[in-house]
């Protein structure tokens, strides 16, 4: 039995918001694969919870008339990986979330929870950064949409205020059409592990497939929160696909990231990984776009 002071099961988004406002110290629980573990080990014992896990309106993936892909934040990792829209348009996201934990965790864990607990190692986060995801946040006064780059405000902290809920994740057409991507998770084990470093690249090639027309590079665990490397991206745009371009990409990325020493790995190893994984992920993304190395 969990040491929970009280738990309320919300019946709608509005109901959840009202409950959260009425209980200023209540936490949102979605799949619970972080919260319940923190309760178990005592860090959150005696907490008050508002469960949104039953809100099916926040599940599922659809495509809008303008081509935007809408991902319900309660969609589990396994449902994202197996979804036809994701497989067709943004397979890189399905591949990234297929590297979270193990099968049972991918069935309970939600993409919204993955980014809303604010950790830098979230396997979905770097790819959502590379895809310029837009996040819909709903509060008592209505909805607002912010880019994912404005979502994280510090380790373990996102901009959600008490009484606000992440209600949709959008990937707009210009961020996936013509792009291919690759996410590489470096960890000590093949499963049930947390990324030492995660690197996600999406790229678009010129029509003749010889040049980089656009590239997005994002990392997890390369800084206190997931991050993009805009300078590195700019540095190779319009460059021909050759060794010089890959070397520049890796070297620039290593300069732009800001990893730290932790018990999991040293800063030095993470810098080396940032350099290597950026090149490897870009190579894979280029191959998927039909480019020749």
């Amino acid at each position, binding site marked *: 039995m969990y*040491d929970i002071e*009280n738990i309320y099961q919300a019946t709608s988004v509005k109901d959840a918001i009202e409950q959260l406002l009425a209980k200023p110290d209540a936490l949102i629980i979605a799949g*619970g694969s972080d919260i319940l573990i923190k309760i*178990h080990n005592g860090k959150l014992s005696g907490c008050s919870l508002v469960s949104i896990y039953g809100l099916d309106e926040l599940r599922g993936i659809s495509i809008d008339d303008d081509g935007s892909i809408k991902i319900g934040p309660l969609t589990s990792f*396994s449902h994202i990986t197996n979804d036809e829209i994701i497989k067709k348009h943004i397979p890189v996201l399905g591949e990234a979330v297929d590297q979270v934990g193990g099968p*049972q965790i991918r069935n*309970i864990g939600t993409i919204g929870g993955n980014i809303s607990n604010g950790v830098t190692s979230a396997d979905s986060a770097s790819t959502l950064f590379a895809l310029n995801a837009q996040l819909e946040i709903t509060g008592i006064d209505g909805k607002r949409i912010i880019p994912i780059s404005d979502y994280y405000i510090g380790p373990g902290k996102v901009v959600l205020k008490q009484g606000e809920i992440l209600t949709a994740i959008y990937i707009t057409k210009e961020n996936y059409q013509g792009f291919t991507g690759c996410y590489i998770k470096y960890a000590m084990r*093949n499963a049930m592990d947390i990324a030492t470093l995660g690197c996600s690249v999406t790229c678009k090639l010129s029509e003749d497939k010889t040049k980089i027309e656009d590239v997005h590079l994002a990392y997890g665990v390369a800084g206190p929160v997931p991050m993009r490397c805009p300078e590195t991206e700019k540095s190779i745009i319009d460059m021909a696909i050759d060794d010089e371009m890959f070397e520049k990409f890796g070297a620039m990325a290593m300069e732009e990231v800001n990893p730290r020493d932790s018990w999991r790995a040293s800063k030095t190893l993470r810098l080396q990984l940032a350099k290597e994984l950026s090149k490897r992920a870009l190579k894979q993304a280029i191959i998927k776009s039909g480019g020749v190395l």
Partner: protein
Amino acid sequence: MANVELNFIVNDEPRNIIIDDRDSLADVLRNKLHLTSVKKGCEVGECGACTVLINGETFDSCIYLAIWAEGKEIRTLEGLMDEDGNISDIQQAFIDEAAVQCGFCTPGFIMSAMPILESDKEFTREEIKKHLSGNLCRCTGYENIINAIENVKKSRMNNQNI
């Protein structure tokens, strides 16, 4: 905390019980329904010993709140038994392949294998391993477990094709 009513289907049987809203599904299955194949190992979703099927998907029942099971279909190892009380092919295969040593992880492994065995799709050995990657065994070294699942998968696919 509060006592709440829970209506769900467990191993094909509709159940209506009173639970504490702080209970994990593993606690309810073990303590209220005496389904003790559901093992509590790590209790933090790492070891997979408490794996059950919820609407056909594998979940660690230790980190699943019992209140969320309302209206859902749960399957545990006990549900694999046939009407006469005989064990299923996969359980027999675990015996035949010596895939059981201390046995604590076995029910979880078998429940994790169910989506593989009940799928129409073929699975490579690597794919089987990936499906079992949320289950830990400290005795067998895994090879015999994978052999057992692979054998049953093959025989079920063959029977399907006849």
